[in-house]
């Protein structure tokens, strides 16, 4: 990375988070977002890059600045930590349930699953789950849609981008057993206000096998990656 962000903020390259923030705050007063959009955007970019660099250096988790507040804690029992997660047991239970359940039942079951309650748990286990599903007997498309919805992989974003090839492989895998392409195209709708959906003329053929093989090798390549 070049050093322009540090030069712009007028700080050393080994500055800590505190210093970066102080420099950013000082410059912001001269280039307010509402008064100087271009100037602000440049400073903000430099600030984000410096923070990113700090994170990438793995030096330290950002430290919050603690403060005391006169507020009262809401009186509720102490939170429970979720039990350890075993992907084998999980997939077995999912396949079992899939024999009799609807997509909605699958979603409810996932939502009630204690292992996924804490923040970030779904993202932590998403890769493992999808990998295991690609090796297990295929789930029907509607059930795959429910799993993807629960894992937050039906929305655009970094999580989806990271697992894109796995997700599309899983979708295709589901379609090899059922022809109903419509089912997986539809978003998993919970709110009655969401709208859906268009026609889609997709044809699936031998190319899918090749695509799947491609994904398997991709799996290997990225196994050691970040």
């Amino acid at each position: 990375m070049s050093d322009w962000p540090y030069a712009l903020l007028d700080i050393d390259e080994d500055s800590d988070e505190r210093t970066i923030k102080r420099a950013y705050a000082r410059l912001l007063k001269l280039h307010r977002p509402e008064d100087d959009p271009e100037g602000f955007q440049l400073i903000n970019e430099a600030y984000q890059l410096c923070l990113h660099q700090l994170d990438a250096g793995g030096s330290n988790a950002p430290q919050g600045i603690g403060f005391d507040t006169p507020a009262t804690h809401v009186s509720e029992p102490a939170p429970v930590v979720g039990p350890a997660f075993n992907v084998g047991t999980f997939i077995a239970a999912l396949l079992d349930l899939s024999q009799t359940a609807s997509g909605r039942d699958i979603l409810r079951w996932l939502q009630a699953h204690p292992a996924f309650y804490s923040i970030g748990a779904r993202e932590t286990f998403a890769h493992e789950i999808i990998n295991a599903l690609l090796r297990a007997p295929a789930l029907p498309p509607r059930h795959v849609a429910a799993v993807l919805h629960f894992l937050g992989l039906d929305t655009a974003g970094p999580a989806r981008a990271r697992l894109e090839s796995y997700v599309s492989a899983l979708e295709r895998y589901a379609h090899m057993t059922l022809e109903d392409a419509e089912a997986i195209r539809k978003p998993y709708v919970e709110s009655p206000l969401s709208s859906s959906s268009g026609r889609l003329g997709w044809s699936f053929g031998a190319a899918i096998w090749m695509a799947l093989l491609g994904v398997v090798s991709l799996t290997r390549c990225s196994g050691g990656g970040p």
Partner: protein
Amino acid sequence: MIVGIDLGTTHSLIGYHGPDGPVLIPNALGELLTPSVISVDADDTLIVGRPAVDRLITHPERSVASFKRWMGTNRVTRLGKHALRPEELSALVLRALVADAESHFGASVTEAVISVPAYFGDAQRKATRIAGELAGIKVERLINEPTAAAMAYGLQQRDGGGRFLVFDLGGGTFDVSILEMFDGVMEVHASAGDNFLGGEDFLSALRDACLRELEVEAKKLTASEDAMLRRRLESAKRELSNTSGGPVDVEILLGGESRRWQIDEAGFSRLCEPLVQRMRAPLERAMRDARLAPGQLDDIVLVGGASRMPLTARLVSRMFGRLPLRHINPDEAIALGAAVAAGMKARDESLEEIILTDVCPHSLGVDTAQDDGHGQVTTGLFSPIIHRNATVPVSRVERYQPMRDQQTQVEFNIYQGESPRVENNVKLGTISVKVPARAAHENPVDIRFTYDVNGLLQVEATIVATGQTHEVVLQQNPGVLTQDEIRQRLAALSELKVHPRDQQENLLVIARAERLYEELLWARRDLQDALVRFRTVLDGQDPLQIREHRADFARMLESIEAQG
């Protein structure tokens, strides 16, 4: 004078920044919360606020509530001879609030900062600005509700800093924002939410269960029975939040028959499980976009009236492994923050300067098609240009190329949303540019999106080969009024008769007496007589006599309602 306004789904508040900090202004009834409800009486004069709430029961076809949910749509509500859009209904509430502020200051109010849900999209924000315009005030800024709450909260510790998550469950909307305060900067890291999830939905869940268990068909309820049921269940819901989980009794008149229903907190939580589940995804997404672990948050703050329900605190505890804070009165936090923002807008000297940086809550992009190299073309793929939770103002550019060689026209549709497929996102407009005929890979088009602090999007297309630039004005969104339409509506609105604020107390006792008449069969004769007497006194127009009589009348209603 700049005021701060919380224009809520169920209640609205107005305040300003005084020498000792933010102050909320009471309405003519002496209350800080003005219900966002409109009604129209027999001679088509409009009633705004608390008296209109009672009329939801007695005159359901002439009254309306929760219209914030329709902001940004074309929905028209018929009230007597009037047909009103959501912006106009909101404008009537804003006018009532401004009248309260003007009577408080003894001076006119012309500018305001109005809070909106962080997750409001383009059309809804525009509609809110138009509502302000229709109410005759200049909207200096729209501030996101969680950010406003954080300002009310953050300013309490003057030299404090830290990261916090604001969990805002209002009457109709759910917002999550993650913010950080440092060195006079308030930085929003991420926002997420659900524009159709709030206290009203929990009430509906309660109502559906009640009707199911009493085996009453919802369709068979009259509008006023339904309004009465909602009113009873609303107070049951409040009771459930306050008591220690014991059962709450609800007594209601259905089809002329008195029925009894019982519910406890555990039962209520079970009913609301699907709604609670819908809060998980925005919380997860906000944390992920902010790239923070729960341990890195200094506090989790609950605001919004519906956050009083114990199930919200339970959900937060379970997900974050820690207990949330409930700070200032959750009904008032947003309005207090809007008042602080108004003070800053006025560059109030008593306020330490705070610079606010916010984010764009939705991804914005265009539709694209992709060729997989085997001749398979997939269309309708969403290509985000500004990613959600980018700090605003922001300007970003992406390069695209035509699908075919010698193509002379390229069309892009502009979308807002998070689905990888555009059909699930919200379309904001279309742009079409002519390109010179040449090989596709030598014919790229740059699309630049610029999003400003007020949430307005500008789109620019540059044909790289020729350097030609097209500035694109987004086609008018069907849910947004044009300037001409605004002028017409403004003229029409000024013709409307609205009961003046000094009539509020009289309107309230009448509306309340009429509601009790509807609800309590045994008291009908007494109420009828008292109403006739009060109307006669009103006709006499003697202020002193009216005040005395009104006080007696109110006491009588009090004791009737207590015997209920």
